[in-house]
């Protein structure tokens, strides 16, 4: 007993010591907990959020492109697509294998996906497959557990309701290339597109919008548990073009199967109401991928469907250049409205003979008659009298051979030669070169847009510049109002004389375009025909004078017409070219007639609401 009591006392001492040590350790654990949970809470809170919240950017919806009345020319269509957040997958390679079992991926696609995964920050998902079929989508949804990081969502793709006929003015979009995606992370987002031509390219910055984001809570396997927050971003702005889709459709239909271009401008503002370039192409293919045979077909087509001929097609203006030559001569006094020159059917300079059209001898005529009947010999002499540099100067004033500052990419300024230009090019400029300048042949090359601009400036005496963006996000753009443009630096009296002559071209029986005069009451069109050689015809062929039946299509002359209407209060300017269509009066003027008739009937200029709607609204009071 005694021993045990002693033992117990010793034990109690030791047990108390052990207990104290254990209490101290518990205290240390408690202290450590306090440090972790209270002192360092904010640090770990942040880590916990970072752990579970994943953020990814989402592509904004691209802005719409409409015509001036709000008719959608480029819109967005929803489709299903599969995206991949590789950072959320413990083993991305196996996820891709699982995905490929459900949705076939070819070698190219796999290579692209691998490249995309390698080169992107974690918050930017990688596109696995666009345009998922319903069964594919269902298969993916069912197999979600095997596909951590895979997201099936609604994406948008670009649609062009009017198709090929509007492809040139509206343009198209395509996926950004690797370099663009690298330079701008936003472009790396699946669904982001870059405008490559037309209005899509010109207004790309406002059409794009700003990306949104989705914050999701994901578990350790990368499976989305719930959506925490989202922001749709800012959709791209709507761009309303100055085009009148009805008029554009008419222009395309009028050109039909012929290669060519037709441009209608608001002559007081320079707004482009129609800009057709035939043939067109399916603009949607650039987004979805162009089949090889289609691409080869485009490349091999002698009609060059991908070229916007209205702004990039270069043509000899032919006789449509004569008003410019006349205005240059009038300006410098080498020609007066009453001056009479004689046409004997040909003009001899040195030992070279320049023929008049059809070898016709027009006799002694004034400038007005010369324009009316399109006498070449008259203008050979006028050109020689005024000189090539002054012709070029007037051409530039009228918008030919200069950069028109178009709000459409890939435009060409064309060319009107000068002595200086010839010297720089090592071209020996002979008087004969100046002679053919008088009838818009030789080195001169113009775009239909430049011809329409020339016509608008001559018609109104306003130095309008053509442009196509009318409203961006509802805001009227500069240059869309009458009065936004300065007066043209050309004598009004000279313009009036030329306009009078152009009136007679269309509205007198001896005028070359009399067949295309308007059938509207109190409104007339004025204009000028042109038939421009595309081939340096041999003397023998000149003798035969466009013996067209024997010529290959590509050698036939281009038919042109420029005009404006109404004559007494000009508002619309038009330029039409039918490539290798022979006579401008026969092929181009009738198209211009249709377009001007449409323009004068519907009067779209300066309006955002169609005239017809207004009429019908007025007719049905409620």
């Amino acid at each position: 007993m005694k021993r045990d009591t002693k033992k117990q006392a010793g034990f109690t001492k030791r047990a108390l010591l052990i207990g104290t040590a254990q209490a101290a350790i518990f205290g240390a654990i408690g202290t450590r907990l306090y440090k972790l949970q209270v002192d360092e809470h904010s640090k770990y809170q942040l880590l916990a959020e970072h752990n579970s919240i994943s953020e990814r950017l989402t592509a904004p919806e691209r802005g719409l492109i409409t015509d001036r009345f709000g008719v959608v020319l480029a819109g967005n269509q929803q489709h299903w697509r599969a995206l991949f957040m590789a950072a959320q997958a413990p083993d991305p390679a196996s996820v891709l294998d699982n995905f490929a079992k459900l949705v076939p991926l070819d070698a190219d696609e796999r290579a692209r996906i691998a490249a995309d995964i390698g080169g992107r920050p974690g918050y930017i998902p990688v596109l696995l497959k666009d345009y998922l079929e319903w069964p594919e989508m269902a298969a993916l949804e069912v197999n979600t557990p095997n596909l951590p990081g895979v997201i099936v969502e609604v994406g948008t793709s670009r649609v062009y309701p009017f198709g090929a006929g509007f492809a040139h003015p509206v343009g198209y979009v395509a996926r950004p290339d690797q370099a663009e995606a690298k330079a701008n992370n936003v472009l790396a987002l699946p669904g982001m597109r870059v405008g490559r031509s037309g209005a899509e390219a010109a207004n790309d910055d406002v059409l794009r919008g700003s990306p949104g984001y989705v914050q999701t809570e994901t578990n350790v396997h990368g499976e989305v548990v719930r959506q925490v927050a989202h922001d749709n971003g800012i959709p791209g702005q709507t761009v309303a073009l100055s085009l009148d889709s009805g008029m554009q459709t008419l222009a395309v239909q009028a050109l039909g199967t012929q290669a060519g271009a037709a441009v209608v401008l608001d002559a007081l503002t320079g707004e482009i109401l129609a800009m057709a370039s035939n043939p067109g192409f399916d603009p949607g293919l650039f987004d979805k991928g162009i089949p090889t045979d289609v691409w080869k077909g485009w490349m091999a087509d002698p009609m060059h469907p991908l070229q916007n001929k209205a702004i990039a097609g270069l043509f000899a203006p032919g006789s449509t250049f004569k008003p410019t030559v006349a205005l240059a001569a009038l300006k410098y006094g080498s020609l007066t409205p009453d001056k009479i020159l004689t046409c004997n059917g040909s003009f001899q300079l040195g030992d070279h003979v320049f023929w008049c059209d059809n070898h016709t001898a027009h006799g002694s005529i004034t400038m007005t008659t010369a324009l009316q009947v399109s006498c070449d010999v008259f203008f050979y002499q006028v050109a020689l009298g005024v000189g090539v540099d002054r012709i070029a100067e007037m051409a530039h004033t009228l918008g030919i051979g200069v950069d028109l500052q178009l709000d459409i990419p890939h435009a060409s300024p064309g060319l009107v030669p000068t002595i200086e230009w010839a010297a720089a090019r090592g071209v020996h400029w002979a008087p004969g070169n100046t002679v053919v300048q008088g009838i818009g042949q030789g080195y001169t090359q113009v775009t239909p847009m430049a011809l329409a601009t020339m016509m608008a400036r001559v018609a109104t005496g306003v130095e309008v510049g053509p442009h196509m963006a009318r409203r961006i996000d509802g805001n009227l753009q500069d240059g869309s109002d009458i009065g936004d443009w300065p007066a043209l630096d050309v004598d009004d009296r000279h313009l009036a004389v030329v306009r009078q002559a152009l009136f007679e071209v269309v509205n007198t029986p001896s005028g070359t375009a009399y067949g295309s005069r308007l059938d509207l009451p109190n409104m007339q069109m004025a204009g000028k025909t042109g038939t421009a050689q595309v081939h340096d015809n041999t003397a023998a062929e000149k003798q035969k004078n466009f013996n067209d039946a024997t010529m290959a299509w590509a050698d036939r002359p281009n038919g042109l017409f420029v005009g404006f209407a109404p004559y007494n209060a000009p508002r619309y300017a038009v330029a039409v070219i039918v490539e290798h269509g022979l006579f401008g009066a026969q092929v181009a003027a009738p198209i211009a007639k249709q377009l001007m008739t449409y323009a004068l009937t519907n009067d779209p200029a300066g309006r955002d609401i169609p005239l017809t709607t207004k009429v019908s609204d007025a007719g049905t009071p409620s």
Partner: protein
Amino acid sequence: MNGSTLSLHRPFKDRSFGLVRKFMRINWLFVICVCALAGIGYVALYSAAGGSTTPYANSQLIRFCTALIMMFAIAMVDIRLIAKAAWPSYVLGILLLVVVMKFGHTGLGAKRWMSVGGVEIQPSELMKLFLVLALAAYFHRASHERIGNVFFLLPAVVVILIPVGLILKEPNLGTAVITAAIGATVMLGAGVRWWKFAIVIAVIAIAAPVLYHHLHDYQKARIITFLNPGSDPLGAGYNIIQSKIALGSGGFSGQGFLQGTQNQLNFLPEKQTDFVFTIIAEEFGFIGSIATLALLFLIVAIALYTAMRSENQFGRLLALGIATNFFLYCFVNLSMVMGLIPVGGVPLPLISYGGSALTAVMLGFGVLMSVHVHRDAEFAVDEF
């Protein structure tokens, strides 16, 4: 039987230890603490399942209730009977360890488990209690002089080293170290001189680098990971990092019940077992974790009080060993969760999901309550 035997038996008989009387002598504060911890465990396991009583919470509750009944039953067993069973149970424990090594099934790379009548048991868990029983029995009869004798101590060291060696072979480094520490603590309580422990600790410190060479790769990895958890964020160090994030993000008052993202989004693997404390800490914050800590310590304190209160050396050493076992469970688990010591498969007793540790701990508590119930029993040094 000599004269002292009579004096030993008197108190037992005088206080007429009927079952009801015994039952009344159970330390009910202790029982309340145990049930409270089990309740915390139920809440944590409910949360671990994403707010569901299945698959963890309810099945653990059933296990606990069974174990509680077992605890009460053992508490009624005469302490002398337990003393008599000490050595046989030690031998049984050793046999089980050998059997599990030969026929047990592998879990997480180690042979630790065996199935007895459909119940999964881990013999190393039982072995810790059996070792305490054996050592308590061994030192119960030792006089002060004998404890000073090194040759008397050697068999005790062997008794400790046999199971420690077997557990190391499983391999289970954590439990082996804990087992050795329990044995050492019981020897300390028995009165072995401090300087002898100092020598042993010095020897281990010198031998440690050599032992390290013989560790399994995963054991080495654990130690390396512990020293630099950031080195392999998705490998072995991942658990420590995620565990600390869970604790730290809990803050003072917690993210709220079922609101812990670390828990609910499964950033912690097997969180219902070894990392169950992170659920409490994340969802109930510092308040929840410190309350749990306090309850755990209260249990250790009551066990130590029971040890000091016992009138016989066997009961004293037994209670000390059981208290130390429970303390080491808590210490290793909590330190592991907080990234203070290498990760080892040590659950948090009474709270973690799993039957083996719970059964072992409650078995120990049953014995502890028996010590408490029979605290006035005195039996002679050579009673058995």
